[in-house]
């Protein structure tokens, strides 16, 4: 049955979007900023994994760890240098700075590693298993499994640990959390670290699925994941998860049943319709402004 294999492929793509969207939504929830450089962290992660696998011939898990380590450090570094001085600045100024960081990363990558695309080695076995009449590649299953594991770990971290509750407190009210003795700057750094680490995981999955690595590879998945985060209600972690999965499924179905070229138009069209019905996304909180 075609439908089932489309659905599973959609879930696979959606899982990648969901992992990226989690980074967006966490940063938004706590730092209240749209981190447009998030997509480019994915690109850096993919390059690191690529070089770890080819130049240094590291085994796959070590390559993933290397990508996570570099991206995490990069995320924290960017936050410290570019975003921290702008804590009190208007949100548009932070947005433009994030765009500047995005340009910087893209052009830096272009200078360091040239703009021609590199072929990501296929390390995950290319075999597939059949579910009924649909065949599903191991890679897709691994992607979905990774997403579920990430989601469970993150939910436990946010709900059960001390740092997690500090994060929730910061997203509610920064001033009050500061008075309660929470180191808000530290929490924001941790958020960026987690978001960037997740971006590294997503980058490896993305580069394995679409095996080419180039300086602007992060921008389209970045925009899609951002859309997914808004779709689910930005700032909400389960929302990013559901939004990502739905976006992936809609995209694959639109490609399969309607038109390959118009799939982007359909994805964004559905987004507009959803926002019309639920103006703060699927799981977003409605904020009532008091006069």
């Amino acid at each position, binding site marked *: 049955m075609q439908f089932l294999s489309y659905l599973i492929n959609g879930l696979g793509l959606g899982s990648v979007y969901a992992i990226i969207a989690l980074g967006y939504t966490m940063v938004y929830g706590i730092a209240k900023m749209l981190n447009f450089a998030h997509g480019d962290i994915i690109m850096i992660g993919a390059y690191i994994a690529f070089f770890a696998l080819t130049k240094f011939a590291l085994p796959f898990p070590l390559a993933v760890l290397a990508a996570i380590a570099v991206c995490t450090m990069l995320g924290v570094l960017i936050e410290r240098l570019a975003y921290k001085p702008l804590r009190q600045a208007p949100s*548009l100024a*932070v947005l*433009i700075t994030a765009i500047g*960081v995005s*340009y910087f990363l893209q*052009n830096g990558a272009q200078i360091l590693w040239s703009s021609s695309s590199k072929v990501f080695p296929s390390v995950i076995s290319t075999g597939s298993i059949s579910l009924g009449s649909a065949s599903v590649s191991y890679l897709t299953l691994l992607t979905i499994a990774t997403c579920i594991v990430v989601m469970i770990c993150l939910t436990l971290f946010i709900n059960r640990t001390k740092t997690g509750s500090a994060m929730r407190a910061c997203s509610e009210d920064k001033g009050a959390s500061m008075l309660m003795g929470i180191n808000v700057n530290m929490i924001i750094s941790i958020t960026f670290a987690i978001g960037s680490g997740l971006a590294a995981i997503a980058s490896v999955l993305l580069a394995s699925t679409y095996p080419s690595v180039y300086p602007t590879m992060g921008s389209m998945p970045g925009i899609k994941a951002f859309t997914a985060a808004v779709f689910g209600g930005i700032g909400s972690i389960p929302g990013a998860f559901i939004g990502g999965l739905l976006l992936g499924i809609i995209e694959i179905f639109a490609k399969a049943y309607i038109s390959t070229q118009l799939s982007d138009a359909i994805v*964004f069209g559905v987004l507009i319709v959803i*926002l019309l019905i639920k103006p703060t996304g699927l799981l977003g909180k409605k904020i009532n*402004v008091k006069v």
Partner: protein
Amino acid sequence: MKEKSSVFSRFGDKKNRGRLMSFALVIIAYIAVEVLLKTGSLGSMFSSLLVPITCYVVAAIGLNLNVGISGELNLGQAGFMSVGAFCGICVSGILAGSITAGIPRLIIAIICGAVLAAVFGFLIGIPVLKLQGDYLAIVTLAFGQIIKSIFMNAYIGIDTEGLHFSFVESNFKLQPGGKMLLNGPMGATGTQKIANFTIGTVLVIVALLVVYNLMFSRSGRAIMAARDNRIAAESVGIPISRTKMLAFVTSAALAGAAGALYGLNYSTLVPNKFDFNTSILILVYVVLGGLGNMTGTIISTVVLILLPELLRSLQDYRMLIYAVVLILIMLVTNNEWLMTKWKSLFSGKAKGGA
């Protein structure tokens, strides 16, 4: 009190001074460029950038109306430029037989581009203006993406039987002798280049006139009131959606006019030209120039378009430096300590002078 409204005292008025300054800036820049062109001391690279600069200035002025005056973040300005550009190209292509003179055809194309973009702005405005903040921004982003992928798949042509339109390339056939206006991902090819710098400058002045007249009118004050405090504005009877729609549609129309001029400045134009990055670029011009400040927008647009060209000798590093400059400007202009130092420097000087 009558004296206050006399022409001379209005020159001293701060807002009028700002207004006059931006017109003076445009006219002086125009004369300077024309003189340089006549004496031939302007390089071919700079003269080829003249029309695009005026286009981006108009689009940025429009966006500043939306972001600065109306206070709504719009990430899809390039989408409206795209609508205007391809509408303008099609209109110019259709009229090529009946109106041979370039200038009237260009003006008609610009007007058509502006009108169509305004219609799109109205249609998009209905869902967009129901939302607030970042949700509004994402819908404009989505709109830009949708427009791009529609133009990537649109085939429009004209032949003896009239106008043809299709979304599927294989369904699209023209009679022999027919003319292809829009060719899917290839965009518009073989466009007659009829845009020129004078019309571009006139368009900038028209855009300034439109925006200033709107800003300092009753509706403009309503738009700013709705931006500053939505609830308070609503409570004094300002129709929020209508005022916001006015700003949104005007902004879209200006972008459409800019797009039409841009499209008719090149013989080929691909739909990918007006992607998310272009929208962001225009937003950068607006934010760096200062929200609500049209003179600032003009200056920052010109500087930021010329900057990569001036840095061309640095080759690969130029965009990297551009990015660093962008980040540093944002950090410096938003640094409280530096800003207070800066201000005290100036007030100190003023005191010393007195």
